[in-house]
């Protein structure tokens, strides 16, 4: 019962088979049992969760419950949650208590969800493996010596391990989709501007977007319904009428045109991943879709462009962490400059420093035109590629990442190798378009493989429809990792090739 999907648990709550308090207590117990091994949560708010659960049960008794009332969820620790630590996975904010709720946090709270805790993440959302967190790496629930992906690794691992049925993440270059892929769950990055960024601690403002993690497309739609919507506090939040993202779930796929860019199926993609994607395409064909060849000629430029623009914005966004008003301040310093240097040197980890340095460099006098400006121009070309492609197809399909989850430490000494893991995900952020990852198979070693669905602006309902129909015909999303028992330590599993 505890490990049901959001939709299943909502039905159970509605039917009175379980109360929100019972459900919350059950999941808190699961978290207590498994989090020490997974390190998916950095904060667990037992008291707050139970209070919210009691309120949810009261609302249900009063007949005012909505579809998400009483359902426990977790928030990535980059989203501000009033009264709770919001650390961004950084020493800098390790003791920072958020004084307000992020827009998406408030939306899910208003919808009656029960916040059980905050999830681990790469420091300031910078990373693809969740190894840059000040609070230590998150373990992949499928194999504990593998990474869960990043930067939203904690949320993905928590959902995959059935510690919570749903969670939020943020996606700047793939930080929802890649961990979803690595942990065998669903993750959706909406169109830029659909979810307000108010209260999302900025990494790269023009790319950041919050989105849901869940095990099914249907659950993602339910969560997105509560997260989306115009917010006057975010000037990049779009003023559009509210949508019901579940509205197209049942739509048959007959006539669906699936775009297959050659650029997503070339060298560099692991053979097992490629095979799983081919099988998924075959499945969609059986469901009535037709495949169309499309070109994304500038796809290969997405990673270099991303790793100019994202650090540029980050270098400026992270300037506010100066030790003056809040956050980490060095204990001893000789003067103002020394305080800045020491506080930031101590407060930030290596990857964050690396990106601040890169970003500062590309914005510097004499380099701005060659790097920042050029990257902005190429960004437009990448967006144009998609626009042209969507003239002949409805969704674009491919692997979410070139490989399944890699081992902890395998790439942490080679930033460029790590960055190349984002090769299929960053383009959607650069274009501002929606994209999601859904499970579509496993490697022989037993690690999940993710299928990425990309669509034109505001096509979230269509992406969810395709994903839902695929999930009606497959059971990849129903497979659960076997979790180590409460007593045993997180023994690394030996995997036969």
């Amino acid at each position: 019962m505890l490990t049901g999907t959001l939709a299943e648990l909502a039905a159970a709550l509605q039917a009175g088979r379980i109360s929100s308090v019972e459900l919350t207590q059950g999941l808190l117990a699961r978290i207590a049992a498994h989090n020490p091994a997974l390190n998916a949560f950095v904060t667990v708010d037992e008291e707050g969760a139970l209070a919210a659960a009691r309120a949810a049960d009261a609302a249900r008794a009063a007949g005012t419950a909505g579809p998400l009332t009483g359902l426990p969820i977790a928030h990535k620790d980059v989203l501000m949650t009033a009264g709770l630590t919001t650390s961004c996975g950084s020493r800098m904010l390790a003791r920072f208590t958020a004084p307000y709720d992020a827009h998406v946090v408030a939306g899910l709270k208003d919808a009656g969800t029960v916040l059980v805790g905050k999830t681990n993440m790469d420091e300031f959302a910078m990373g693809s493996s969740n190894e840059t967190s000040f609070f230590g790496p998150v373990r992949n629930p499928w194999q504990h010596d593998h990474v869960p992906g990043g930067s939203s690794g904690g949320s993905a691992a928590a959902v995959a391990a059935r510690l919570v049925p749903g969670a939020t993440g943020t996606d700047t270059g793939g930080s929802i989709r890649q961990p979803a892929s690595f942990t065998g769950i669903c993750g959706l990055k909406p169109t830029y501007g659909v979810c307000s960024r108010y209260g999302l601690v900025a990494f790269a403002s023009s790319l950041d977007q919050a989105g849901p993690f869940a095990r099914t497309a249907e659950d993602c739609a339910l969560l997105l319904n509560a997260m989306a919507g115009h917010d006057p506090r975010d000037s990049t939040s779009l003023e559009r009428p509210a949508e019901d993202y579940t509205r197209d779930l049942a739509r048959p796929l007959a006539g669906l045109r699936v775009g297959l860019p050659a650029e997503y199926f070339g060298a560099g993609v692991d053979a097992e991943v490629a095979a799983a994607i081919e099988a998924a395409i075959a499945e969609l064909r059986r469901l009535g879709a037709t495949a169309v060849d499309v070109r994304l000629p500038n796809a290969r430029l997405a990673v270099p462009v991303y790793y100019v623009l994202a650090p540029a914005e980050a270098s400026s966004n992270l300037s506010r962490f100066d030790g003056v008003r809040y956050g980490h301040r060095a204990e001893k310093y000789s003067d103002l400059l020394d305080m800045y240097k020491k506080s930031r040197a101590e407060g930030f980890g290596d990857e964050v420093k690396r990106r601040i340095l890169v970003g500062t460099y590309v914005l510097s006098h004499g380099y701005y035109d060659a790097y920042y400006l050029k990257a902005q121009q190429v960004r437009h070309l990448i967006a144009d590629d998609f626009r042209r492609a969507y003239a002949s197809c409805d969704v674009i399909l491919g692997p979410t990442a070139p490989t399944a989850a890699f081992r902890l430490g395998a790439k942490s000494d080679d930033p460029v190798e790590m960055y190349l893991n984002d090769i299929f995900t960053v383009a959607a952020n650069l274009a501002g378009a929606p994209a999601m990852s859904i499970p579509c198979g496993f490697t022989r070693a037993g690690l999940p493989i993710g299928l990425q669905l990309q669509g034109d602006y505001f096509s979230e309902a269509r992406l969810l429809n395709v994903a839902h129909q695929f999930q009606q015909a497959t059971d990849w999303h129903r497979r659960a990792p076997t979790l180590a028992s409460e007593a045993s330590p997180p023994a690394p599993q030996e995997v036969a090739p």
Partner: protein
Amino acid sequence: MKWEVVIGLETHAQLSTASKIFSGASTAFGAAPNTQAAAVDIALPGVLPVLNRGAVERAIRFGLAVGATINRRSVFARKNYFYPDLPKGYQISQYEIPVVVGGTIVIATPQGDKTVRLTRAHLEEDAGKSLHEDFHGMTGIDLNRAGTPLLEIVSEPDLASSDEAVAYAKTLHALVQWIGICDGNMQEGSFRCDANVSVRPAGETKLGTRCEIKNLNSFRFMQAAIEYEIHRQVALIEDGGRVVQETRLFDPDRNETRSMRSKEDAQDYRYFPDPDLPPLVIGDEWIERVRAALPELPRAMQQRYAADYALPASDAATLTASRGLAAYFEEVLRALGGGAANAKLAANWIQGDVAAALNRAEIGIEQAPVPAAALARLLSRIVDQTISGKIAKDVFDAAWAGEHGGDPDAIIAAKGLTQISDEDALGRIVDDVLAANAAMVAEFKAGKEKAFNALVGQAMKATRGKANPAQVNAILRRRLGG
């Protein structure tokens, strides 16, 4: 050698919006530290700026008032640098594409009107304040001012002397208040200037190396700082030295400028477009709405005063020093029924007794205890010869002091100040004066014209100034057979 001075001014005018440029916090001056700093102003993690359209509208108003181009699309950028009173670590400003481009300000110089070209005017946010006193070796930060909207107005280097620079600054200062975009309070920092000063040999076309003098928050300081800087640069060059491009600070206590930082120390601000703010798009309709609401501008008003009332240029300029003063003048004139003679009478009074009383009381025309309607009534008593101009001054003082509800007619009646114009009554008074002042009469008859005036004075004195002076004159002449 003869030297030519080249000056350009950068002016920060604080826009008179109730709330800040990117947050809802109040902009009111003087609150307890950090009580007017919203989450956005203290740059909490996760907060975002939302542009105050009131600030944009004021920028448009300024652009229209100086005949500039309003950019239909302008861009906010981040100017990155670390400072404790800059909470985000960057200032949001407009860099490559400002909201206002071009325009002119006309200033009065001894050689006549001079047109000063404007380069641009752009919107930006102010920083907070570092407080170095009272913290025993530490620095306090007050973020009340952080995020206050500013319009930075940049002139071309068209000013050729400290006098011209001050004239420009004063004209601009009056204009921003006139169009209601800035309260002009220089003590509170609502209007502050930086001056770029360079010198070159007369006739040279290439500009000399300039120094920027920061934070000139009074016209007197501006004049003194520029004068000092001109002499410093000329002396330096004449001694065989070279001016180094640098930022200098004016020290009003020592009346000199001193080096703050040289160009070599100049920071790389790493400007880039702020991804949190979409480009500012201004439609024609918005511009036309602002244009329609724009008040008549001082220059147009001056020209109208000269044309319609034949007022001298200096009168017209003084009366249009502020919108309040011009409104006062126009209200007085309207009540008097208009006309060139009434205009001159009103102009003289406003520039004379009214201005003097305002100065003494250190208040503005809006606070004058004698409102326009009361002054008009007083002046109309002069026009209809109820009282003399001299008596009118006493009535004005009484009205200013609030006697009899400040009503001139009530004061005249209560004090019995109505002018004596009765021919018989005046004749008797003159006869008494002649009888009592035989010596003066003798002097007059001996050819001393001055004695005549003394006799008039005696008659006026006898009536405590109420006698109609023209009639007294005429009667005296008749009596003395002059």
